[in-house]
């Protein structure tokens, strides 16, 4: 039975999320009427803050499925009660990310063109199919998880979802990996890097949602033993992501033609080195690892704090990866110093404007609203007996 205060908290959160979303839609409308001139994006940095948020949400969406996959695909039955939330989060994050991506288009009203004209050589076009497919698979998955009579389909559908999301994140990474001409991208390691990032980011979001929804319902988030396992898993994923990031940069450092770019991103090209080292490496990876591994900090709150840091580190990483990667000038004339009116040979600045930041926030708000409303409308939280079976340990 829901308490009065829980109900009030729910509606307050819903209203707050709705307000952020409304402001974001207003910002998107403003951008559409005035054109992208009112954003910080330009002909050098063509993808900016909206894409940082959108790619974060889309990559995290794939990783949010972790818990469900562990239950359905790898047969860890302890995880199964948490599978519905996991799948719901995937849907919510994907929808929020796609919303931002679509509203940032130069001609968002032509979405129907994107749905009817496919260039099958384009990884972007494939991704549209992959994203829509994931929605469909997740809907079936959720149905199979929640409807007792369809329980036997949960495993095959879960398997399909697992395969699909690995392909999907490979596709998302390949949007960048296939950019043969750019020093910052053009690498096969970006696809597995994105998969490692998705595992970490998605699980962090899962932890946060689990924690927040349980608090809203006034109960313990998760069985203590399971919680400890999922904590360790998050730490392992954070380390895996760091490993791929290191491999990507070390490979570049070994190539003479890439050294200038690496120096820009890692040392000299402010603000990107600070965001990379302080934002992604220290605050987004090392501090969370301390929080997750420290024996004295085993409570849900420490996990939630680590998860928030992982998510913030993710935004810092993507800012460096997407914006920093474009700010470095394209090398069209190796061996020459170049100058022109069009930014040749010069690292161009990018200062995001308020509307594009609000649009990005709107993606988070949309995901938040879908998750919140979904968790209320559907029996998403693990059955209460899990909480009863595990009396609260030290918080």
């Amino acid at each position, binding site marked *: 039975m829901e308490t009065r205060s829980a109900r009030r908290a729910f509606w307050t959160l819903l209203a707050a999320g709705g307000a952020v979303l409304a402001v974001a839609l207003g910002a998107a409308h403003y951008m559409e009427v005035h054109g992208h001139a009112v954003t910080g994006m330009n002909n050098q940095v063509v993808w900016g803050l909206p894409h940082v948020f959108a790619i974060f949400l889309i990559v995290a969406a794939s990783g949010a499925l972790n818990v469900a996959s562990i239950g359905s695909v790898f047969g860890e039955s302890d995880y199964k009660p948490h599978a519905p939330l996991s799948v719901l989060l995937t849907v919510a994050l994907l929808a929020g990310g796609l919303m931002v991506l679509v509203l940032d288009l*130069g001609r968002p009203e032509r979405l129907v063109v994107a749905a009817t004209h496919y260039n099958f050589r384009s990884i972007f076009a494939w991704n549209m199919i992959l994203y829509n497919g994931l929605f469909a698979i997740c809907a079936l998955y959720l149905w199979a998880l929640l409807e007792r009579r369809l329980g036997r389909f949960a495993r095959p559908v879960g398997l399909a979802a697992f395969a699909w999301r690995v392909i999907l994140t490979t596709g998302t990474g390949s949007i960048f990996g296939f950019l043969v*001409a750019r020093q910052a991208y053009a690498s096969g390691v970006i696809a597995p890097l994105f998969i490692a990032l998705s595992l970490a980011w998605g699980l962090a979001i899962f932890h946060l949602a689990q924690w927040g929804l349980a608090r809203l319902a006034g109960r313990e988030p998760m069985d203590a033993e399971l919680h400890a396992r999922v904590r360790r898993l998050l730490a392992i994923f954070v380390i895996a992501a760091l490993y791929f990031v290191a491999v990507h940069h070390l490979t570049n450092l070994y190539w003479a033609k890439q050294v200038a770019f690496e120096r820009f991103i890692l040392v000299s090209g402010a603000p990107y080195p600070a965001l990379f080292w302080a934002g992604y490496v220290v605050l987004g990876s090392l501090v969370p690892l301390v929080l997750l591994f420290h024996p004295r900090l085993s409570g849900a709150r420490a996990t939630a704090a680590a998860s928030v840091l992982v998510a913030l580190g993710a935004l810092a990483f993507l800012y460096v990866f997407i914006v920093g990667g474009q700010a470095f000038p394209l090398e069209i004339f190796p061996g020459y110093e170049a100058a022109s009116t069009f930014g040749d040979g010069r690292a161009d600045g990018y200062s995001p404007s308020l509307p594009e930041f609000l649009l990005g926030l709107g993606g988070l708000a949309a995901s938040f609203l879908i998750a919140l409303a979904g968790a209320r409308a559907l029996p998403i939280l693990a059955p209460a007996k899990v909480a009863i079976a595990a009396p609260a340990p030290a918080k």
Partner: protein
Amino acid sequence: MNPVDKRRREFFGQAAAIAGAMIAPGLMLYEYAQAGDGAARPRAPGEPVNSKVRWGMLIDTTKCAPGCRDCVDACNRENGLPGTTRATDSQWIRKVDLKDLKTGKAVSLPVLCQHCAEPPCVDVCPTGASFKREDGIVLVDRHTCIGCRYCMMACPYKARSFVHENTTGQSPDVPRGKGCVESCTLCVHKVDKGGTPSCVEACAAAGHQAIVFGDLNDPSSEISKRVRAAATTQLRADLRTDNGVRYQGL
């Protein structure tokens, strides 16, 4: 938009989506027949472009004067571009000044869409709005461009611009508008009528004669003879995009 209009649009959108899903696989199978070799004859009115022609440009950097912007100005005039150079303004052709890092040798040259035979912008475009004509001219079909800017990410030459603001004063021959990506069209509206791109004309009018325009597939064309006689380079030749624009003296 009134509600009736909106509903009607939604309906057609959905109908088109279904039709598209059914037709798309068939279109994949459609391939253009490759034409044979030999010199091109002028196209009859109503005859589509064909791959017997490959339009190209040869830019002789030794004749290109530093500080001269005649080709850039001509392009802006012809195509109704504002000609301003803020980071959000379109520049279809730009002058780049180079200095050899070892020897200090200075070179000045115009950079524009290289009209690749294997254009990365065409590969990545999700809707097929970025396309290559049979005669090698790479264009954006603004009717199907959704403004995602992925082609700008993919272009090795930074040849593309995004229209960041509302446009006014378009030429009747060169439509352009906010929210779409654009780039050098090789003055396709003139070439289709037997003309020459404006930048080439302006360079010749200034007495530099640094740009030769012509059919790379026609062995008797001036550009073919020049490309045969002198060493030319393609920008980012390592990418094997087989550019229609070649440079001399680089």
